[in-house]
């Protein structure tokens, strides 16, 4: 242990602790800008570049960056001496001197870390005048880039490279021309980007933001010739409340349904319903592959989940040789869209193009998934618009509603009822657990002795287990972060030495609850933990907790699809993947 004082307070911390961490462990909050950490999720951005966290260390000539300086025995640290405050203010004033002065119209207004830092330091004017850096704007279907606002914290670059191993973003050029950009400064959409959007989630300012589709949805609602239905993903209901001042982990399912109805959606449905449907299809597909494998037939194992659209794009771009391994089941968003346009539209008495399907997602990649050509018929997408959790919150406020005042209401039928297995899709390991609940019972014909599979839960980036399915040892793995997913795919390339049968992949920290469309957590991983606890609370509170017992799911198979992985479900509920890699072709 190391003894030191911070602001004259004697403290003791383990060796190797930074001054920043030592201070925070002892209730002293040193401001930061570039530093970003997701505690317990193996992500830290610590370039020591912004110098906002500088502190005075007795006996040291220069101020020290607290985020990048380890504690030493006998150290005396001052975090708010006149010299420190002066330096800190100067640093922020210099950053502001090359920052657009458009806070009022900025997407990040109220959520911006530079804005709150400016307020905290009491900066009233910018004494420095000089050139400002400008860069062209760029956008994918999910992510909008305005590099004029970039403060070069490099959080996006770390997220993209270290956590996701996508490698789309890098610091390029030098000095005043320096910018974070894709290779050759091409558009993000032409790079290796998979639209996971985590660069947006970690950006402290408005340099990286989401593509806003609220006005499209408002227009559709206002159009009398259209019937507009909405579906809401599992992770939204445990995070939306944060936008209305509720504590993280508050479950707002009923209030959200009520708010959606008051926004003018004709029918309010649930992606949880189609998550149950996904389990029926994906679980059946897994059992089918396993049976073939046991019969000695050539079959692709392990099977990977295919719910996460960033992950789907990732393997299409990086592992075109392994496209037959992931499940062919569409994501719950995609399945809902297909059911709505094919089964629901005739029931509601409207043509498919007059039924507008809106999805509310914790995710930005879903905005790109919805636009995939193969998920449309004659140019009419199965899902017409995707809003993130944050956009839904904006829309609720815009329409003079307050989530806190909403009554508890139910979803509409028949695409509204769901089980506990569906809601846990929102957390890492949830799809696996839901699939196990169903696969076990469908395969053995027996009732599970215990519904919960604790092996698949928690925040470890890679979880492995062997599940006993009536004597058959099913080897599973659950990963989040695409860097972990990459390692799994590389194992498959090496012949699957660990003998996995089934692997769940989610791109975002902790799964969809940590998605890029969720309320900003600003690196407070406790918020993501609370959302996960809420997900499992919601599961426990459900009267039905296994997808294959959902009466509305059983009914649609009875009435429409026949059986899971049958002919019609293959046509509507399954998809295929494309080689999207960039190969350098050799010419003679």
């Amino acid at each position, binding site marked *: 242990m190391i003894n030191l004082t911070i602001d004259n307070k004697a403290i003791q911390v383990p060796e190797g602790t930074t001054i920043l961490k030592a201070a925070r462990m002892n209730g002293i909050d040193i401001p930061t800008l570039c530093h970003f950490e997701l505690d317990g999720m193996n992500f830290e951005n610590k370039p020591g570049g912004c110098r906002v966290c500088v502190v005075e260390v007795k006996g040291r000539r220069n101020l020290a960056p607290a985020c990048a300086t380890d504690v030493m025995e006998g150290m005396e640290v001052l975090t708010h001496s006149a010299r420190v405050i002066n330096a800190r203010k100067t640093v922020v004033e210099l950053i502001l001197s090359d920052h657009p002065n458009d806070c009022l119209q900025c997407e990040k207004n109220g959520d911006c870390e530079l804005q709150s830092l400016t307020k905290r330091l009491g900066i009233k004017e910018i004494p420095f005048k000089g050139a400002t850096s400008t860069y062209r704007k760029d956008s994918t279907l999910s992510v909008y880039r305005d590099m004029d606002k970039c403060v070069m914290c490099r959080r996006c670059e770390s997220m993209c490279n270290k956590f996701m191993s996508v*490698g789309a973003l890098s610091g*390029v*050029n030098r000095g005043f021309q320096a910018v974070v950009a894709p290779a*050759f*400064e*091409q558009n993000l959409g032409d*790079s290796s980007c998979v639209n996971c959007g985590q660069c947006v989630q970690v950006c402290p300012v408005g340099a990286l933001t989401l593509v806003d589709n609220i006005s499209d949805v408002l227009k559709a609602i206002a159009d009398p010739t259209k019937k507009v239905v909405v579906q809401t993903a599992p992770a939204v209901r445990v995070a939306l409340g944060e936008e209305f001042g509720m504590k993280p982990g508050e479950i707002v399912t009923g209030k959200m349904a009520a708010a959606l109805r008051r926004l003018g959606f004709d029918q309010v449905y649930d992606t949880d319903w189609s998550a149950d449907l996904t389990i029926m299809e994906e679980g059946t597909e897994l059992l089918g592959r396993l049976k073939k494998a046991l019969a000695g037939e050539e079959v692709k194992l392990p099977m990977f989940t295919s719910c996460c659209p960033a992950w789907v794009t990732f393997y299409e771009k990086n592992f075109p040789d392994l496209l037959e391994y992931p499940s062919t089941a569409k994501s719950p968003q995609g399945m809902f869209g297909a059911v709505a346009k094919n089964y629901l539209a005739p029931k509601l008495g409207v043509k498919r193009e007059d039924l507008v399907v809106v999805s509310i997602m914790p995710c930005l990649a879903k905005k790109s998934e919805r636009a995939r050509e193969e998920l449309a018929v004659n140019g009419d997408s199965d899902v017409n618009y995707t809003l993130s959790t944050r956009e839904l919150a904006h829309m609720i406020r815009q329409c003079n509603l307050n989530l806190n005042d909403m009554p508890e209401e139910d979803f509409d039928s028949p695409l509204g009822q769901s089980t506990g297995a569906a809601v846990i899709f929102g957390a890492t390991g949830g799809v696996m657990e839901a699939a196990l609940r169903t696969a076990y019972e469908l395969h053995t014909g027996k009732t599970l002795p215990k519904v919960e599979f604790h092996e698949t839960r928690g925040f470890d980036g890679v979880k492995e287990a062997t599940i006993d399915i009536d004597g058959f040892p099913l080897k599973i793995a659950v990963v989040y972060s695409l860097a972990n997913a990459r390692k799994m795919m590389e194992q498959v390339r090496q012949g699957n030495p660990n003998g996995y049968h089934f692997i769940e992949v989610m791109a975002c920290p902790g799964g969809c609850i940590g998605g890029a469309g969720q309320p900003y957590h600003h690196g407070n991983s406790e918020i993501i933990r609370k959302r996960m606890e809420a997900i499992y609370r919601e599961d426990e509170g459900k009267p039905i907790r296994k997808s294959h017992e959902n009466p509305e799911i059983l009914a649609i198979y009875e009435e429409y699809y026949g059986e899971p992985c049958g002919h019609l479900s293959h046509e509507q509920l399954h998809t295929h993947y494309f080689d999207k890699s*960039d190969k*350098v072709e050799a*010419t003679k």
Partner: protein
Amino acid sequence: MANIKLSEEKINIIKEIAKSFGNKPGEVINVLHQVQGKFGYLPAEVQEIVAHELGIPVSRVYGIVSFYSFFTMEPKGKHPIDICLGTACYVRGAEKVLDAFKRALNVEVGKCTSDGKFSLNTLRCVGACGLAPVAMVGDKVYGRLTPDLVPGIIAEYND
């Protein structure tokens, strides 16, 4: 980016260089240095191959190429011209000399003439300050330059 094309021979040269550095990501600058030595410049497709061979994102390779002024994505001409803009040359009128080269060749700094014959660049000091202002064409040094000497120098390289 659409699929890009590069001759098999060039790909093999890059592969050999990467291999000679053990295909280690940490050797990226050395690899780029040698590859530029072979090709004279580092176009996008070459950077793609380097990235692939070292197992790092191409954005990272481009980050390095765009950071160091030594690396260039522009092809060099048959006769690369470098104008010294160091302090001594600058105060003795190097900028006017540079302008004369730009006019005579109809080319911007960092670019190559359309016939591929000359490329124009600037540098900081070649250690011949006594001859300021100085320019180099290939390895040959020209000193005490004035704008009216420029057409004569270029004419020396007209075959």
